């Protein structure tokens, strides 16, 4: 039988509006044929028409016959809330045929995905041919990009900013044709920085330096160890079927923060986790395309302890990871905040010294985590800033949107803060321990 709790059900809501509408119909009279077992929850919603709403708890995944594409829709939310609230509404454990078919398809897809993960190759010779062709394509793309960067510097950023969009589009198209989508995305970011003019000059040059470094690394990739080559391929935009990386030994992780955003029809979720009792961080990135009704995985509540298998994407830079939770749908276990505080750095300088060493070893990451205790809010040049016990002051990142929440939670007292930084200069608070309670500060823009 389903062990879904109300809080978990609510955490799957794509936006507050759907949650509110779901709450309104979370009553027995709004559904019939409600059923649930260990795998799924289902029921027929009685709206302007009747809709079969289904939840696959292994995932979780959602399906409803209503026309709404944003899943879970209100019918599914209502159904989950109803079942979570009162199990007595469940009438049967016999899955309807439509549900069985859907679950069957999902199982087949999961097996296929697993095979792909384990690196099972059907035709090694053909694959090697394809890989060689792609490598040659990327070589050509990287060469074109290097020339473009040199060209931008020859004419100067001031003139490059005035260039027609076509010039930038052409480079991006070329990179896409060369199957180097990762580089194309970075060029788009560079174009946006150049367009912002004088205020972003240093950031623009830093982005150009990063791109150049990536191009140079690609050109010299054969001198790098296999794991670094593999990661380089990922950065360029080439997802390879690599030999599987062993799951991490640690099977208990604390969710530190959960940032969600909705942009260009895409939901994304960035979850930062901390090894329970350790000092290692892991970052999960989830994406879901809104127009096809995909939804982000729920259950990653900040301050909770999750058990499961975590696999880092790269041994070179063990930050990005995938996580298969065992208790995502069980009653959340609130993590004891004291151990988090215990592993935090006590000064900003110590934290950044460690972090800069990691940056030197792996200069391509766009977010570096740091956990610092005994911070306080101060004013620096008219802006809100963070200071530690040594009176070291660091400014908050311009991207930080929860300043008021931070002020509200922190007040004039000291606190422990989990932050990320892109360049080691500005800090982006993600979550923090305020008066013994862990609070999320990460961006939550899911289109509400």
């Amino acid at each position, binding site marked *: 039988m389903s062990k879904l709790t109300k809080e978990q059900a609510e955490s799957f809501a794509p936006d507050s509006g759907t949650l509110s509408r779901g709450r309104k119909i979370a009553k027995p009279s709004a559904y019939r044929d409600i059923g649930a077992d260990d795998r799924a929850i289902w029921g027929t919603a009685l709206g302007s028409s009747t809709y079969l709403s289904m939840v696959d708890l292994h995932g979780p995944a959602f399906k409803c016959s209503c026309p709404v594409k944003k899943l879970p829709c209100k019918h599914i939310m209502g159904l989950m809330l109803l079942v979570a609230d009162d199990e007595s509404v469940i009438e049967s454990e016999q899955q309807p045929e439509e549900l069985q078919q859907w679950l069957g398809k999902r199982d087949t897809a999961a097996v296929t995905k697993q095979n792909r993960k384990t690196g099972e190759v059907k035709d090694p010779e053909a694959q090697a041919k394809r890989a060689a062709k792609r490598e040659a394509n990327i070589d050509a793309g990287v060469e074109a990009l290097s020339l473009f960067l040199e060209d931008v510097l020859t004419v100067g950023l001031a003139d490059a900013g005035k260039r027609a969009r076509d010039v930038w589009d052409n480079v991006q198209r070329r990179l896409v044709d060369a199957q180097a989508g990762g580089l194309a995305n970075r060029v788009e970011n560079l174009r946006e920085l150049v367009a912002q003019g004088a205020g972003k000059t240093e950031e623009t040059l830093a982005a150009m330096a990063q791109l150049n470094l990536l191009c140079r690394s690609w050109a010299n990739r054969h001198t790098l160890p296999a794991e670094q080559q593999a990661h380089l391929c990922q950065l360029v935009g080439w997802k390879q079927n690599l030999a599987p990386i062993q799951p991490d030994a640690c099977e208990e992780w604390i969710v530190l923060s959960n940032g969600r955003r909705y942009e260009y029809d895409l939901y994304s979720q960035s979850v930062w986790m901390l090894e329970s009792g350790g000092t290692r961080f892991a970052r999960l990135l989830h994406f879901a395309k809104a127009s096809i009704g995909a939804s982000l995985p729920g259950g990653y509540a900040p301050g909770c302890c999750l058990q499961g298998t975590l696999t880092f994407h790269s041994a070179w830079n063990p930050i990005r990871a995938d996580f298969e939770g065992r208790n995502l749908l069980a009653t959340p276990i609130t993590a004891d905040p004291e151990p988090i505080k215990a592993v935090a750095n006590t000064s900003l300088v110590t934290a950044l010294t460690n972090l800069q060493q990691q940056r030197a070893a792996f200069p391509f990451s766009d977010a570096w985590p740091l956990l610092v205790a005994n911070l306080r809010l101060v004013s620096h040049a008219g802006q809100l800033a963070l200071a530690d016990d040594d009176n*070291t002051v660091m400014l908050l990142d311009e991207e930080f949107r929860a300043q008021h929440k931070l002020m509200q939670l922190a007040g004039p007292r000291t606190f422990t803060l989990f932050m990320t930084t892109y360049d080691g200069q500005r800090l982006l608070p993600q979550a923090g321990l305020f008066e013994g309670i862990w609070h999320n500060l990460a961006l939550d823009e899911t289109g509400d």
Partner: protein
Amino acid sequence: MAHLLSEEMIRAAVAGLGQTADLDSLVPEHLAQLCHADNFRSGAERFLQLMTLQQLEQSIARLPAPGDAPAELPAEPEPLLTPLDQNRQAEFARLPRQQIGLQPLLACFLAARRALPDDIAIDMLRGAERGSHDLSALPGSARLRWMLSITPEWSKQLSTQSDAWIAPAQRLLCSPNDELTSDDEQVLIQTLCECRPALRAWLVRLLGRQSPAQISRFVRGCWDTAKAELRALLVQQLIGISEWLASPQGQDMQQWLRELPTERATSVRQQLALLLTGLDARTGRLDEESPLYLALSECITLKAGKAELQAPEQLTPELTALGVADTRAHANSDISKPASRLGQLVRLGGPTLWSRLLDCNADKACELLLNSRYQDELLPFILDSLFLHREGSLFKQVYQATYESDRPVYTGIIEQVAVQHVNAHSDTARWFADIMERDGLWQAATEEASAGALLAAGVRLTPATSRAWLQHFDSASFASLLLLDLASNDPAFAPHPESDDETYEQRSHRNFCQRIRTAMAFREALTQPASTMQGEHA
């Protein structure tokens, strides 16, 4: 923040390499040697490489330097209003705030002397509800006041562009019996003169909870600096303490009022006339020689058992001296100027003078006026008069006449007049609530505005009245539901079980019961003791 790249290098990158003669001069020597020109196909390629190396080198080596003591933020001010505990705050976050409305929400928090949860207040300060900045700051917690003190853009949104008034206003709310310090008094006087009407109304309401002597002292203190609008509000407060002014303790203040120079503002002059006439009536000074009696006797006579009314055709100096003016007294009513003059005289006279002029008791006199040829025009003035002279015994009679009147302009006139008077003084609110309870005039408190005004005045119906109230209505505004005193689990509004074949009425009733339960749970949450008095974030 220092640049990662040298100034010259940045300048070269912005202007273009074509204008840069010597790349070696732009970078440290060790980098120039590392990237020898012969190893690169072009200067641009070499520059890109040099820039990348320097950027990485500097970026990775840079650490924040411990500096001088940073500019510390101010300490958190002392908490004045009791905050809700964490659990209650979470419950409040789930409430249908838009449904409740800002004014009722605020009224409940202020009546309970509770700090508004920070999430709600911050939302309002960030502009979630237009024009609500002052009102969200008024019941702000210590943390919110601290945030306001370090967030200049928020303080600028307040109508006085300063948050200095919040603490004095909260002290006034928490300890209405304590003397205001001269500093607090000065801040409040200045705020009253400068702030927007919504805040001014609340501050005056808070002042009205003080003792009559304190109110009088405050009025005298700010009279000379106050604008007409504020002076009119202050006189309304004095009308609320007429009984005290008429007593020996209030003689000094009464004398001061009578010696005030002639007021230029019509609204203040009218209010002063109402106040002084009321005082005359209480002290028996309205004899047959008094100007008001003489003026009224020219307009009202008894002929053949009926009231014969003659409206003044001219606004004479005598009438002006009595506070009569040719201004529109009731916004929606289309009353001619003579009728309005007559109405103002009737309002000033009150039931005591009506009965003397018509030679009958107050009930009969009121009935005669309501049956006269000016019956419709006089109705709002008679209503006004009942509030001013506290003649509750006639209220039901006037109430019925209003509802029986076939003039559409009188729809809601009772609510309008009641709101005006209830807002003016909290004693009037209690008096009006008593009349409603006694005479069962429930309709008057179902409207959003009148119920909101009663709520703001701190009125709450008794449990017995609340139950009786429920018998009469199956829908009402959230503000009026908040006036009720019932338990959220009271079986009186236990909903019927939901069924597939329920009628529209049954569904409406169930929704209504749900609204009452929400309202009562809201009140209970406010009145239950908080788990922590200080440090609301503990």
